[in-house]
Structure formats: C-alpha cells, structure tokens
C-alpha cells in the first residue's frame, strides 16, 4: 500500500526509536473468519482482487479446488480446501480463507531491515509500505504463517492489507463486504471475540465439542481470527500452525546479536586505536638494516 493512511503507527520496521504513541489508544480491530459458516464460494477472493486491482495470471487446473494454486504477489487471500476424515470415518470438507493474520507481534516487521517498509497501525493492522520495501525477503523468513510473497517484477513484498485503506475511512474489508453467509465478520477485536464465543457455544451444542477460537498467543494474538470446529487440531485446516511463534533463529538474529555485534566491532576497532596511541607503530630500526645487509653480503647476491 501507499503511505496515505490517516492511521497512526505503533510499530515501524527497522527503527531504533519509539514511534509517536500518545494517540495510540484506538480500539483494535479484527476480522473473524468462521470456517463453519464458509461455503467456499470464493466471493472474498474475487472481492479482494476487485478492490485491490489484483490480477493473477490465469493458471491451469491442478486437481484441487484451490485456485490460484497459492498465494502470490497478486493473490492476497486464498480459499484452501482440505478433505478430512474424522474419527467416526465421516468426510469433512474443511475450507479456510488463508491470508495475512495481522499478528499483534508481527514476525515480518521484526525481520524487516528497511525503515518504514512494514508498519503496524494503532488499530492493529500490519501493512507493507511498498515505497520503502527493498525486496530482500526477510519478512518471508520472519512470518510464522508463510504469507508474504516477493514479486519478481517489481521486487516488492505483498500480502493482505486488511484493506487498511477502507478501514481507515470506516469501511469493512472488501472480503467481509462480499461474504454471502456472514462467515467473515469485522469489528473491534473485543466485539469479534464476543461474537466468536456465541458461535463456539452454538457449535459445541451441535456436537463440535472442540470448537474454539484461533487467536494464537505465540504471536500475542492476531487481528485475523478463526472460529474452528476442531480448534484442537488447527493443522487439519490446510496446515494452520498449532502454536505459531516467531522462529527463535529470527528472534536471535534480530535480538541479541545486534548489540553484541556492534559492541564486538567497536571494541576491536578501539583496541586497535588505543594500541596505536599507547604502543605506536612497529618500525624497522637501523640495526635491522645492518643485520640484513650483513646477511645478504654473506649469502648469495640476489639476481
């Protein structure tokens, strides 16, 4: 997206400073995706393409209802279909709308080396500011959900913006607007949690005893949440991670080693400088020249 938002930032990638935070008391928003009410019509996909002017190249049939085959720089949301055999031997068709989860603690933002290329607004939306993106792919490594995709055309990273441009002017995201069954809801995060709770109680009363809300604490919660009929097994929904968190390799790389590295480099350079000041250069002395001359005269003349 372009950086034309009226929203305040609460997090900015690759900065050592605290963003202006006095006005960061806005209600956090969330999108709630109730997979039990999804009919797999892909209206959300179409609406996403329409609103964001995305046109994925037409591909070929891969033997799956999934179309296109994967998220891409031009596919920011994708219905994923999985046929799952339950404990009673019955077939369940699990359909999940995949896309950016808008983590409260975003791994992409943590990994990003370009100042201001990834931001989080006060309402919780995580957005990519393309003008600042350098196309390195670090966000891909930081993401616990395998969401960002780097374009080979313009070397920018893309993903769902949660329609930050619509939300900023009081509209719901395009996918929410288009959903014909009300499976995608949008509002404040606390409202969405309340609504999810009603749905979960209903699902439990109808035999889905493990129905629950997917709002993973490993990333401090997300601004896109799912109601799952099998919340104990999120991985059956086309690989939704059970306990997503920012990889410890990324944490270490973006955490401890940065100050240690600077300290190590600075220490070495200062040690050199003060060695120079205290001991000084190692210079050839006249007696070295004399000894050398002696040896050369005793030896063979260099040709």
């Amino acid at each position, binding site marked *: 997206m372009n950086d034309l938002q009226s929203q305040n930032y609460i997090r900015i990638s*690759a900065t050592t400073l605290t963003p202006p935070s006095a006005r960061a008391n806005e209600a956090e928003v969330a999108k709630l995706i109730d997979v039990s009410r999804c009919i797999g019509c892909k209206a959300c996909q179409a609406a996403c393409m329409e609103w964001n002017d995305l046109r994925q190249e037409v591909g070929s049939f891969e033997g799956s209802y999934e179309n296109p085959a994967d998220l891409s720089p031009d596919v920011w949301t994708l219905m994923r279909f999985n046929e799952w055999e339950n404990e009673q031997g019955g077939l369940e068709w699990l359909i999940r709308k995949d896309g950016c989860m808008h983590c409260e603690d975003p791994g992409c933002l943590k990994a990003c080396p*370009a100042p201001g290329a990834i931001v989080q607004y006060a309402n919780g939306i995580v957005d990519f500011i393309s003008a600042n993106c350098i196309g390195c*792919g670090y966000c891909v490594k930081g993401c616990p959900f395998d969401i960002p995709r780097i374009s080979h055309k313009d070397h920018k990273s893309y993903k769902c913006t949660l329609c930050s441009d619509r939300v900023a002017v009081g509209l719901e995201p395009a996918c929410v607007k288009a959903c014909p069954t009300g499976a995608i809801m949008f509002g404040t995060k606390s409202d969405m949690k309340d609504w999810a709770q009603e749905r979960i109680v209903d699902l439990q009363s109808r035999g889905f005893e493990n129905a629950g809300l997917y709002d993973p604490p490993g990333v401090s919660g997300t601004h896109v949440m799912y109601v799952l009929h099998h919340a104990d097994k999120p991985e059956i929904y086309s690989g939704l991670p059970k306990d997503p968190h920012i990889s410890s390799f990324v944490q270490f790389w973006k955490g401890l080693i*940065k100050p240690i*590295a600077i300290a*190590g*480099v600075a220490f070495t350079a200062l040690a050199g400088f003060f060695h120079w000041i205290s*001991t000084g250069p190692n210079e050839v002395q006249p007696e070295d020249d004399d000894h050398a001359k002696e040896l050369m005269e005793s*030896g063979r003349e260099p040709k």
Partner: protein
Amino acid sequence: MSYPRGTIVRHNTFARVNHWITGICFVLLMLSGLAMFHPLFFWLSGLFGGGQWTRAVHPWIGVILMISYLGLIIQFWRDNMPSQDDVRWMQKIDRVLINEEEGVPEVPRFNAGQKFVFWSMALFVPVLFFTGIIIWDYYFSSYTPIEVQRIALLVHSLLAIAAIIVWIIHVYAALWVRGSMRAMTQGYVTPGWAWRHHRKWFRSLVASGSRGPVPGSNRDLGK
C-alpha cells in the same frame, strides 16, 4: 612492475591485484551488509543508490569475492601452513604487541597472526558464500525450506560480524607494522623489514639467491 634496487619482493603484481579485488569487494560487502543488518547502519544503503540497489548488488559482489578469495587461497595456502613455530610465536605475542621482538621465534613468510587471518577468512568466505546463496531470494528462495533459510540468515550474520572483526585486526596490523602497506600496494619491502619481521623467510631468500616473493622465484622482478 619494477621494484627499487636493493629491495625484496613481498607480493607479486598478480597477488596484489588479486588481494585488492578481494579487499574492495570485502569493504563493499561490509557496508551493504551492515545496511541490511542493523537499522543504525541503513543509511549506508545510500552509498549504493538506495535499499533496492543495496539488496540487489550485495550478492553479486559476494560472488566476485568468493572467486577472488579462491585465487588468494591458491597463491597463499602453502606459506600459511601452520607449524610448531606458530605456537611458540603465539606464546610470545605479548612481546610482539609491544614492538619488542627480541627472543620471539623467527618468522617465515607469514606469522601466526597472519595465518589466523588467512584461515579464518578461508573458513568464513565459503560459508558466507553458501549461506548467502541460500538467502539470495530472487534466484534461490524456492530451493530450500524456510527453516533452512532462517538458519542461513543467522549464520550469515554471525560469520559476517566475525569476518569484520578479523578484517579490522588485519587492517590494523597492516598499519601498525610499518612497511606492510607498501608490501601490498607497491609489492616490495626493505631487507631491514624482512630481517625484522620475517627473518626465516628472508634467510631462505638469501640462501636461494632469490629476491622474492618465494625462494627460487625470480619472476616479476623488473630491474
């Protein structure tokens, strides 16, 4: 290249050109790499024309450095083979550091410190190259799982920092030991320098009647 009369050839022209290609690549990689490593250094990306250019050019410079350093390995590995003398020299490092080298074992073409720099880089450069290939998003992102790429990024960063620290030691040693810089720029040293810092090497040159850089070698001498 012609060297002044009465001097000793330390590094021939090919070695010096090879060294400085490596050196220039290293400095460029360090600047562009630091820009992508820590926000405090992101401004360095301006030297390369901005973040996109920095990201795009860094791996290509890395490829040149890898090839270039292979050239240095081929030319210098023999003279960098460790020996028992290196241990004895290291035990006297306190004398070396205060510029008083009497009683310090005589040094062949390279001392233990130089060998440390050489072998550190001989380890770091290939590992940086291969981890760099793994995280070269444009061409290679689809060849390895994401977890491998995360580990490669971490290893790449850690080794890069280690390499920068070794590089600072290398540069400082060249400034500290007067005459070393000329050895790698103009290629020659004085006999007094050779006697003081690399006596064993000097003796072997005199014994074989060679002007350097290695006994028996009289190529690239000029008049």
